[in-house]
């Protein structure tokens, strides 16, 4: 219980920190009056506009004001779309979540079999092969992987669409681009974690009492090897998110990252703010979840 409370408190603190970062973003980008008002606006109107937005207040007051409005879900109006920024970004969130879920699934589908094969056939051909695949995944540039996938599966073979999200199979290529880096990291981690577990005494006991090798790996090995993997997944979410941004932009996938990338060119700060904040919230929640699963998997933490 103390552990869970501690993690919760930590999560709240990180969220608070993210709100400072998000506020700092607007503050550093300079005066919104120069973006929003026409160039020939008379000075007294600029002053009035700044007063309306509270820009003539001291910075700490501006921050508290921002925090107060943020807690009510008010992040201002998108400069470009002229609607409230929060619902605009939030309504794209499910699409992004779906893409990240698919990317994670891809990463697990690649990493779990490869990791097990590599550990069981330590230093033999399957191990070398798995390590090479992992090395490739960690060294490939996400945008280039995307272009090559389009070239192969959309242009040459015509199996999968190269943009949009209107068909169920549209998610495949973006998910691979978003998940490739994590798949490689997971493979390496699962391999070394499983190798470590397999060398333990209780594994020898399980084998000695006559359990078949496959069962030993599956029942005793995997559960214990999963512990570092869960923590790793919590950290990996930031990479997954980062590459999902590339995937959405490349495949014109209608998630919230694509909206944010479009907002870059128009310097639509409210949209970028909401995007950074939602991304931060998501990372905090996933890490909290990973901490809980971690406690469930490892009784030493749960009972401590």
């Amino acid at each position, binding site marked *: 219980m103390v552990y869970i409370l501690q993690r919760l408190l930590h999560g709240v*603190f*990180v969220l608070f920190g993210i709100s400072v970062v998000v506020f700092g973003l607007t503050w550093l980008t300079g005066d919104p009056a120069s973006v929003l008002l026409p160039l020939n606006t008379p000075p007294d109107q600029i002053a009035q506009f700044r007063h309306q937005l509270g820009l003539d207040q001291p910075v700490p007051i501006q921050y508290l004001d921002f925090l107060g409005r943020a807690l009510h879900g008010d992040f201002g109006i998108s400069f470009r779309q002229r609607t409230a920024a929060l619902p605009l970004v939030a309504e794209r969130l499910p699409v992004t979540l779906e893409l990240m879920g698919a990317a994670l699934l891809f990463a697990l589908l690649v990493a779990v079999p490869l990791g097990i094969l590599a550990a069981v056939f330590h230093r033999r051909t399957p191990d070398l092969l798995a390590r090479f695949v992992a090395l490739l995944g960690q060294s490939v540039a996400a945008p*280039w992987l995307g272009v090559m996938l389009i*070239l192969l599966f959309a242009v040459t073979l015509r199996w999968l669409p190269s943009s949009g999200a209107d068909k169920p199979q549209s998610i495949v290529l973006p998910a691979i681009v978003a998940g490739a880096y994590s798949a490689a990291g997971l493979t390496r981690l699962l391999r*070394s974690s499983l190798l470590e577990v397999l060398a333990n005494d209780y594994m020898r006991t399980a084998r000695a009492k006559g359990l078949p090798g496959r069962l030993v790996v599956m029942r005793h090995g995997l559960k214990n090897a999963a512990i570092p993997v869960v923590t790793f997944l919590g950290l990996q979410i930031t990479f997954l998110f980062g590459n999902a941004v*590339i995937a959405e932009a*490349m495949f014109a996938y209608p998630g919230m990252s694509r909206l944010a990338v479009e907002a*870059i060119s128009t310097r639509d700060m409210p949209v970028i703010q909401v995007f950074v904040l939602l*991304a931060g919230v998501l990372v905090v929640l996933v890490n909290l979840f990973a901490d809980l699963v971690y406690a469930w998997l490892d009784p030493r933490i749960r009972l401590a």
Partner: protein
Amino acid sequence: MDAVQHMDPAALFGFAIIMLFVLAALLAPLIEPRDPLAQDLASRLKPPGFTDPQSGTRLWLGTDGLGRDILSRLIEGARVSLLVGACGASLSAVLGTSIGLSAGYLGGWFDAAMMRIVDVWQAVPYTILAIAIAVILGPSLQNVILVLGISSWVNYARVVRSETLSQRHGEVVLAARVVGAGHLRIVLRHVLPQVAASIVVLSSLMVGSMILFEASLSFLGLGVQPPTPSWGNMVLDGVEPIRVAWWVSLFPGLAILLVVMAINILGDWLRDRLDPRHSML
């Protein structure tokens, strides 16, 4: 050259690849077959092996959408990409090491505050942080390096801090304090050398991530700006004509793959040698 003799074949391969690209980057103006910025609209999107009718030179990797020689741009891009990778990694190493050293050595509230900042920094996905910073600073070569450095210092800060913590009450520091050494001297002369191995290992892997990172930023239009070629923006150049000219994207992406792979191989090898606890078994 003693280290080179003790390398395993994989590490030697990685080392050779890196040296090859570094050499190409250093000698770029001498070995580029053509001016990497020279446009030739008459020979746009020509395939690899195309012979230029005017000069009779063979363009081994073809031309891009503006008729520029891809091989020459690849060599010029090696300068930019390796520079961005090395400078970005150095900047984050300096930032992260100073923060990690001071947090670990001073401890107390300063340590607590710094580690909370690290937590927050880690909760914002790196691309998103970089987007935010790049939007504020505006894109240019220096700003790309700045963005990479600012987004990645936490990796160093965490590692250096935890190693400094374990050194803080060690015999070396104690002995130095007994003879009256000042704090700055203790940190720089006695703690830093002991955490240096970790910094070297982390940096070797970091240069690779930085090159990948630059490619992602370039793809979003926030990286090194045209007409200066970087491998990242060369990949982007090939996105539009991908249906008719696969070679425009293929070669710069392969260059990234090869170099980052070589860096990762060498980094893993270094880690196994310098820090047996984290070996890949």
